[in-house]
């Protein structure tokens, strides 16, 4: 019987079985950032331990960096202290730091792939739950806590329980105006926010075969929102094409050998999965959240659920809590809901292709009056290329603020925050209460183009109607 990519990568990196039945797993690539690493470096200092593989550790700063204030010292002294702490820890331990002055800084899950650090058949860990993003390359990538950051810094390994593997096939063709973001929101809505607990998700089928790397990253990124700590796509020519020539990708004869090796990690056709789910691409429409977790989602044309639609007492309580926070009435359309803020960015949708797709439709349009619209490129490299292409001008002329790279309003650890009960049309990944920096702030997750549609109309809208994206003839 064949093996899945997950099993092959796991076996290649297994150091030993620990007495409690867990596996000590080698982590080939460790990505760190300013929020979850300082305590880990502190723990290392207390124990007098060095960083075991500094060459396999890469740092960037993303969560706390202001996106409209590029000079230090930052006006927030806590943010300044955090960047300085990371700088110090990296210098003392000879860890490569993609600092703000390098032109390579950005959100950790955007920097790893664009530098070619993220590679197929590897294990990756980072103190951030969206590390699942890197699975798009056929890597097994874990979001970890700070004590595990310590473990990886000190030993390059972690103690882990093996996950089960669920294959999710999405076959058929996506309709025009339906994006990778809609696919993952639909998967989470279908399988539940905890449906993936204990599983790695293997995404496959025609839709994933045809997806670009950036689309695959958007889906893998939100695996954790469905409870799956790990999500991945088998590596193929699209993967290799993306990686070729990137700074940390193998070169010359090493490249050819690497591609052969990477291919061998792909799941075997005859491997058995712990579970298989089939989804039809044609069933997916532009999707938006209406509640306070990413599973509380509907198609843009559907009504907001009513409390009575909950199957159990706890489901009814969850719907009621969500409606109360969102200030929505069950049974009413979500389309037409007034928004206050449009946020385009994040590790889910802050990549060049996201910005290009939006700019293509935004040209000649204006953000509705009274709407604050910000575009935050995911990395300095994304910003630089976008500026070379003139995308910044398109965004600025439309009325978007064009910002520096960072996590920004996805989690509001920098000055980009909602105020009061503002409603935000957001291309980010979490609509939790208070997530965007205001306790009463409200978030609706959606694809980047849906964010643009909300920005120009001032309300939750169907981007297909706003931008004249037509269904194919005969659909």
């Amino acid at each position, binding site marked *: 019987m064949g093996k899945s990519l997950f099993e092959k990568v796991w076996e290649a990196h297994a150091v030993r079985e620990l007495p409690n039945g867990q596996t000590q797993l080698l982590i080939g690539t460790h990505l760190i950032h300013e929020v979850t690493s300082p305590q880990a470096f502190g723990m290392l200092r207390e124990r007098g331990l060095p960083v075991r593989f500094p060459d396999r550790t890469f740092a960037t700063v993303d*969560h706390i960096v202001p996106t409209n204030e590029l000079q230090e010292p930052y006006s927030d002294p806590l943010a300044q202290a955090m960047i300085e702490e990371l700088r110090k820890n990296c210098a003392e331990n000879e860890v490569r730091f993609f600092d703000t002055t390098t032109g390579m800084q950005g959100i950790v899950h955007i920097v790893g792939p664009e530098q070619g650090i993220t590679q197929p058949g590897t294990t990756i860990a980072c103190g951030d739950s969206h590390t699942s993003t890197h699975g798009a390359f056929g890597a097994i990538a874990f979001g970890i806590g700070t004590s595990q950051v310590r473990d990886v810094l000190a030993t390059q390994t972690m103690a882990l329980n093996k996950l089960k593997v669920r294959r999710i096939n999405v076959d058929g063709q996506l309709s025009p105006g339906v994006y990778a973001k809609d696919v993952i929101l639909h998967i989470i809505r279908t399988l539940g926010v905890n449906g993936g607990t204990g599983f790695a998700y293997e995404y496959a089928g025609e839709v994933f075969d045809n997806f670009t790397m950036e689309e695959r990253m958007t889906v893998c990124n939100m695996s954790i929102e469905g409870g799956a700590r790990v999500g991945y796509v088998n590596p193929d020519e699209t993967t290799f094409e993306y990686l070729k020539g990137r700074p940390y990708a193998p070169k010359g004869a090493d490249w050819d050998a690497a591609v052969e090796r990477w291919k061998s990690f792909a799941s075997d056709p005859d491997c058995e999965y712990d579970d298989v789910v089939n989804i039809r691409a044609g069933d997916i429409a532009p999707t938006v959240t209406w509640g306070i977790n990413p599973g509380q989602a509907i198609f843009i044309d559907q009504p907001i659920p009513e409390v009575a639609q909950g199957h159990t007492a706890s489901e009814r309580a969850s719907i009621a809590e969500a409606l109360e926070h969102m200030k929505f009435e069950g049974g009413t359309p979500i389309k037409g809901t007034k928004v206050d803020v449009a946020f385009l960015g994040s590790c889910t949708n802050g990549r060049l292709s996201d910005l290009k797709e939006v700019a293509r439709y935004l040209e000649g349009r204006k953000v509705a009056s009274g709407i604050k619209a910000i575009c935050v490129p995911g990395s300095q490299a994304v910003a630089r290329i976008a500026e070379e292409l003139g995308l910044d001008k398109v965004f600025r002329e439309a009325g978007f603020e064009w910002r520096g790279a960072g996590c920004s309003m996805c989690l509001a650890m920098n000055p980009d925050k909602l105020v009061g009960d503002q409603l935000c049309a957001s291309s980010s990944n979490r609509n939790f209460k208070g997530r965007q920096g205001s306790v009463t702030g409200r978030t609706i997750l959606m694809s980047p183009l849906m964010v643009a549609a909300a920005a120009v109309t001032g309300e939750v809208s169907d981007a297909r109607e706003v931008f004249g994206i037509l269904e194919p003839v005969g659909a």
Partner: protein
Amino acid sequence: MALEKIVQVSGRGVPVPGDDIDTDRIIPARFMKCVTFDGLGDYVFYDVRKNEDGTERRHPLNDERYAGATILISGNNFGCGSSREHAPQAISKAGFKAVVAQGFAEIFFGNSTQLGMPCVSVGSDELDTLREAVEADPQLEITIDLEKKEVHFGDRSVPCEIREGARQVLVNGKWDPIQDLLDAAPRVDAVAASLPYMSGR
């Protein structure tokens, strides 16, 4: 450094009801602007405990009847969302020794175990029974028995689940794996040498 063997955890409980309580709720992101975990206990569930002016809201964690509780009781998928260890650290530093819920998010569960804070799952009906018993008598002593995989309270006892690997590390006082991981350094080098990308190829 020998770790405590966590076989039983006893104390009074406090119910924080609801499913899908996320780590942003447990510790809002703005409190993560810190380079140590010290003091995080003051901010646990901050935005549901406090109004924006700092006054207290109605919340079980503000309820005098539950003062001194050391076992947190919640719903399903507790700790979903971010991988921030700040969440279990805040719960632990607020004085909690264990969490009982219907289920836990994967990363939160692992982070908590590694801090020596057991997370045990009980069925939905049993959870209701436990919560109601605690609400009726906040002084009720609860004991989580990791050997028998049971939660005792008053004259009742309900089964609980915990992943076997986690249960073993807790009862054997091996919940912090660092020493075991360090001990295998030569084998780590051997596995790393077998992987071309680890040596820059």
